[in-house]
């Protein structure tokens, strides 16, 4: 069993668009289950991942209402990995790039998300055992 680690991830993809988001959150979940301390710096479209306003919707093509459609919401995934980290003795520090938030009007994030700048990513990286950047391209 390895000791407690600190890992930092930079995410850039907006939600609902690419499998990279799912894979990134799977990786973060694995680290959370190990009780690692995790930093996430959400850059560009990734600041929408914890957007509090995400909502389930009906799907007229499928003929389903919102409950039947049961659309997955990334904000719930983000909250879940935060809770998983805490449950296992770790913590997840999620920082949304402030300029990216302002550009997109994505201010209303779920609890536990804070605003920062790329300088925070630099600090996180310097204080971590390892870093993974998951770019859009």
């Amino acid at each position: 069993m390895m000791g407690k680690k600190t890992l930092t991830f930079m995410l850039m993809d907006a939600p609902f668009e690419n499998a990279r988001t799912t894979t990134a959150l799977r990786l973060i979940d694995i680290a959370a289950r190990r009780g690692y301390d995790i930093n996430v710096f959400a850059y560009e479209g990734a600041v929408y991942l914890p957007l509090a306003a995400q909502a389930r919707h009906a799907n007229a093509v499928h003929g389903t209402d919102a409950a039947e459609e049961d659309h997955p919401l990334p904000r719930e995934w983000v909250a879940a990995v935060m809770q998983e980290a805490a449950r296992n003795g770790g913590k997840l520090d999620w920082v949304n790039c402030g300029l990216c938030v302002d550009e997109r009007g994505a201010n209303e994030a779920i609890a536990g998300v804070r605003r920062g700048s790329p300088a925070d990513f630099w600090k996180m990286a310097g204080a971590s055992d390892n870093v993974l950047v998951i770019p859009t391209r």
Partner: protein
Amino acid sequence: MADYILIESRDPFDSAEVGRFLDLAEGLAKEGGEVALFLVQNAVMAARHGAKAAALAALAANGVKVLADSFSLQERGISPNGLTAGIAVAPLSAVIDYMATGRRALWH
């Protein structure tokens, strides 16, 4: 010499950049570092036996540990028994294992 975990997420039939990423893996291995290449998402398509996967097989033969994400294989209906020789199936947690040991991690 640093050791590396390279994560390939793209299908080589969709992105010509994959070849350059595999070249990087080969070059890093030749420099003497331990190199693992983890295939995830559509990158596992090239791991199928019979696919155009000569580059992956060559990497495996030249000391690069080539792994294919079990979940990505399952999603795409690819049997673990149907992979090119030299490519092993692994869970995504292998990436976190490598990161925890300090390997330099690169995503493509």
